[in-house]
């Protein structure tokens, strides 16, 4: 077991033990639950303007293929109502907007106003206005009625949520029967060699890249740490099932660096 794995395990244990004390983790730090939201908000206010450029740089553009994969796996149809949760700069929303057409609707929701503003400006500049709404919302307390959406996606957002279980329950509530949730998130690489290379890249290159391009190395250090603290594939699958989702499956992408989880509400 690597030192980072040990740190991660210790931290998860600490968090579990301290759940009664309302503690959670922010990267490798253990913080009060009420603090995490503002700390995460600080990270995203800081990186919002350079978010798309950094995504392309960090993933060598592969994040676009991961997102396209998510859209194809969603089985979205014209006329569907889609919630793109933690939608950030609107990559998924843009595609969903075109696929659901005039009779459908896409709601781009994000807890962070800076990210939402960047997303809104970007989509409007591309002429995507007819079927998109913007909502600033906390994934744990979604401001929508029960059984509202055909598809919910959350791409690279769940790991930043303070209480993931509560967020999953909230998503389940607003999903229509027959609807599906797709969680695209960094995960645990399947092979040791990929894992080591990925660790080196995340902790040595990524923060420097963030410092150079977004002038904020700390936020990208948090990104690397938050990925390690995120539940692995099987754990997240169990969490989704515990929230009520059925026929829950996942698919590893790029050797497990990223995983797409899918669950249905029946």
């Amino acid at each position, binding site marked *: 077991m690597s030192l980072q794995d040990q740190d991660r395990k210790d931290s998860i244990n600490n968090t579990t033990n301290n759940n009664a004390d309302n503690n959670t983790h922010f990267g490798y730090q253990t913080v009060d639950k009420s603090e995490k939201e503002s700390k995460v908000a600080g990270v995203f206010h800081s990186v919002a303007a350079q978010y798309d450029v950094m995504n392309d740089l960090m993933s060598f553009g592969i994040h676009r*293929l991961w997102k*396209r994969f998510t859209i*194809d*796996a969603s089985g979205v149809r014209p006329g569907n109502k889609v919630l793109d949760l933690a939608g950030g700069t609107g990559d998924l929303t843009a595609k969903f907007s075109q*696929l659901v*057409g*005039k009779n459908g609707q896409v709601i781009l929701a994000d807890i962070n106003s800076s990210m939402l503003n960047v997303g809104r400006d970007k989509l409007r500049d591309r002429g*995507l206005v007819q079927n998109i709404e913007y909502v600033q919302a906390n994934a744990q307390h979604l401001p929508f009625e029960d059984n509202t959406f055909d598809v919910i996606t959350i791409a690279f957002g769940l790991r930043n949520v303070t209480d993931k279980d509560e967020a999953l329950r909230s998503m389940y509530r607003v999903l229509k029967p027959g609807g599906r949730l797709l969680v695209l998130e960094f995960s645990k690489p399947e092979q040791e060699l990929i894992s080591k290379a990925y660790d080196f890249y995340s902790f040595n290159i990524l923060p420097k890249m963030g410092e150079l391009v977004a002038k904020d190395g700390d936020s990208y250090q948090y990104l690397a740490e938050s990925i390690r603290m995120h539940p692995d594939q099987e754990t997240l699958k169990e969490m989704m099932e515990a929230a009520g989702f059925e026929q829950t499956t996942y698919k590893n992408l790029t050797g497990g660096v990223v995983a797409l989880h899918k669950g249905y509400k029946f």
Partner: protein
Amino acid sequence: MEYNTTLHQQLICSILEKIINKALALSLNGTQSLNPLEQKILVVNLAEIGFPLSFMVNNGLIMVTSLSDISDCTIHTSIKTLVALKKQQQLTELIKQNKLDIVGDIKIAQQFAQIAETLNIDWQSELAKYIGDIPTYKFGHLGKKLAQKLNFAFTQIQADSTEWLVHEKRLVVTKSQVAAFNLQVSELEVLTETLSERIHALKSTISNRLK
């Protein structure tokens, strides 16, 4: 719906989508030709690539995905058949031969094909934006000359081939003639060997008498 897609498929769809929309944006005809196809979906299953390509029109853009659940028209065929179809307009014949299967509104497929055929891109204007007018003119001139020469060479080769087929082929030795010739050579070989043996025997007789 399960994960019946891969990142490679997504890469192909993404590249195709970019090329198609760029070509449409550059076309002098504009994207108005897409208006009648708004929200229409054409799914093409090509035998060579093994996964469906779905083309959906939305807001003057064509989206390419590998979703095949819904479509207004679905085509099952191969690239070879599509080329044959374009060259010879033999739609009914290809359907009869089971090389082409169309399900749904055929007009959708025809409209998509028409858009592809009527693409009119002024490559010289586009190139001039990057390298300037004079180099573009020279490139264009060179390109035209090259095209003319290639065209001439192609016509010449075609004419020569036709001539050879019509006239020269008659003069070519047939298989039966070659076989008859081979037989004659074998017979001659046997006769030569017999003669050689007789000469050898005569030589021996003469040398014995001289002794």
